[in-house]
């Protein structure tokens, strides 16, 4: 039960769910949520590898940086989404399609 593979499977499922969310959700914020899932899955990986690789704390540090970065990214992304809402009155990504061929 408590083996590396278990955690990796969990993370893999989380990753796939994240991918699915990113691809299918219309709402920009929901897409961001999908991205958070992806980042979390990666973090689970790092920490699992750290735990089963002989308590290698580098993995945890990596995860720490990821979380910091995720916060910064979320802030920027939300700022942008709010900006676009101000201009277009929507946050649905597929409606932002002025830029095209």
């Amino acid at each position, binding site marked *: 039960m408590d083996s590396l593979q278990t955690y990796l499977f969990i993370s893999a499922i989380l990753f796939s769910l994240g*991918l699915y969310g990113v*691809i299918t959700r219309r709402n920009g914020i929901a897409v961001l949520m999908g991205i958070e899932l992806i980042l979390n899955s990666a973090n689970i990986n790092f920490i699992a590898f750290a735990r089963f690789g002989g308590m290698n704390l580098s993995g945890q540090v990596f995860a720490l940086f990821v979380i910091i970065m995720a916060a910064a990214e979320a802030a920027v992304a939300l700022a942008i989404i709010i900006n676009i809402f101000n201009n277009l009155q929507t946050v649905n990504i597929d409606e932002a399609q002025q830029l095209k061929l």
Partner: protein
Amino acid sequence: MLINYALGILFLPLLSFIILILVGKRLPRQGDWVAIGSVLITLILSLAMFGSMLLSHDPGFSHEASIEWMDLGAFRIELGFLIDNITIVMLLVVALISTMTHVFSIKYMAGDIRYSRYYAYLGLFTFSMNGIVLANNLFSLYIFWELVGVSSYLLIGHWFEKDSAADAGKKAFLTNRVGDIGFFIGVMLIFTALGTFNYGEIFQGVAQGDMAGTLLTLAGIGLFMGAIGKSSQFPLHIWLPDAMEGPTPVSALMHAATMVAAGVFLTVRLFPIFTPEALLFIAYVGGFTAIFAATIAITQNDIKKVLAYSTVSQLGYMILAVGTGAYIAGFFHLVTHAMFKACLFYGSGSVIHAMHHALHNKHDHDTDPQDMRNMGGFKSKMPVTYWTMVVAALAISGVPLFSGFLSKDAILAGTLAFGTHHPQHFLLPIFGFGAALITAFYMFRLIFMTFHNEPKLPELYDDINESPKEMTFPLVLLSTLSVFIFYTLPYFNPLSDHGWFMELVKAKDSMVPGNPSAHEIAEGIHHSHTLTMILSTLVAALGIFLSWSVYLKKRISADAWAEKLTPYYNLSLNKYFFDENYDKYLYQPLLRLADRISFIDWELYDKYFINGFGHVTKWLSFLTGRTDYDGLDQTIVDGLGRSMSKAGSTLKEVQTGRLQNYMLFALFGVVIIVIFQSF
């Protein structure tokens, strides 16, 4: 010395050409005196050479001189002169007829808008013709060969405002080119095998067996192709009658006496290398042409056309002679024919000139001045023309005491000898004698229709006058030269084909191993000589008699016979529909093919294939762009139905810039790459 003469003979006419083409119009009398002067000097030089030939009396005389024209180390081309008795005789003929033409043209062409250019072209022609005669190798021969074609083109098209003249010039040039291709291939074959263009070296090479068998036969036939074209042999005979669109003196000079004889001259020159097979081919082509053209000449009504077909027929004779081995006889006929045929043409020119004049006075522009059916009874009005033409007609018919008899007799003897020697080729003598019969018939048909009987157009008759001295002088001179005596000297025997000509111009042995030697051929001819004389005289008499009874005495109705033999008559009248068939089966398909190829090239190949790359690129580009923006979403993901309904809506809607499609594709990309890399 001779070389200097030859240089003069060659280049004086060229000089005249250059002067006239550049400044001709500004000279007094448009510079005709330049041309006439140059050609007169040429004549004098030729006569001088001829004199020296007679005096030295050496049948084997031969003198060569050449310059290095091109020297690339191994590959070299020399241009040079070969002066032997054949050359000298031929030079004299060319110079003589050329001079006569120049003189005749003074009045005939008077008032022409391109008078000086006409003389210029005559100079060019004389130059090229002399070049052919003087050449000592195939390469320089070929050069002049083509130049002759050009001058012919220019002179036939002299009155280029007439479409028919322009057409005829082009036709002459192109038809000749067909032959020339064969000639060129022959030259290449020989050069490849023997590495030289020089006659002597070629003969030597053939004698040594460096080139033999089929290759040599093919080379011979190839070279003979040139003669077929130039000498207007079947099946390339079609250009010569059309060439009559040119001024009549030109017809006399080029299309009767000299240029068309160049083909014969070539075969005479190259006789030693022809294999038996090639010779047989030559003989049949010549023989068939002789009789074939004669049958056309019977029905023609245009005075010049009759003469033209007669020329084709006579050239066939000469070729036939070469083919049967009696090539010196052929050359002899070339010389005699030059005189009387030129005379006939001048005569016809004189008649046409008179007709033209008369029509001009009557302001009649519709009547054809060359149609014999509009003539008749000119005998009293134009006595000089009449009598000279009669002499020439007798000569061409092969009546004894005239030059034609001598040469024709020699040819027919050769043919007969050949026929007896090779019974399977019995057709050759039949061709020869048959043609002789028909020749006599149509020549006198011409004489009778033109000069005898009642005038067909009486209203013109009063205006018909004898031509001026400048025109009658050549007639008289040439008809005089059609008498036997000039060829049999120093003997006075009218039946002898000996004389200076046969003494000095001796046949060479063939260089092809296995061919009969000149002596053997001469023997054969000698044996059949007597029989030939009798036969040919009879045949000529019969022809003249028939003609006399049909056209003068009207005992036999020409129309009735024509009625009876309508299909044949029509065939003959329409020249066996050669032009039509060539047009239908050769030219038109060629033009269509050209159109088709051009279409393929431009409208298909370029448009679809080459530009196709562009289109494919653009299409790919469009497709890539599509997938880049909406691609899978519209086509795979949402299914066809939706994309169909979407296609109806605006383009803008179709081409979304959806971010999530992008990510989807990126992921697809990842998946594909992983699959690609791992499995």
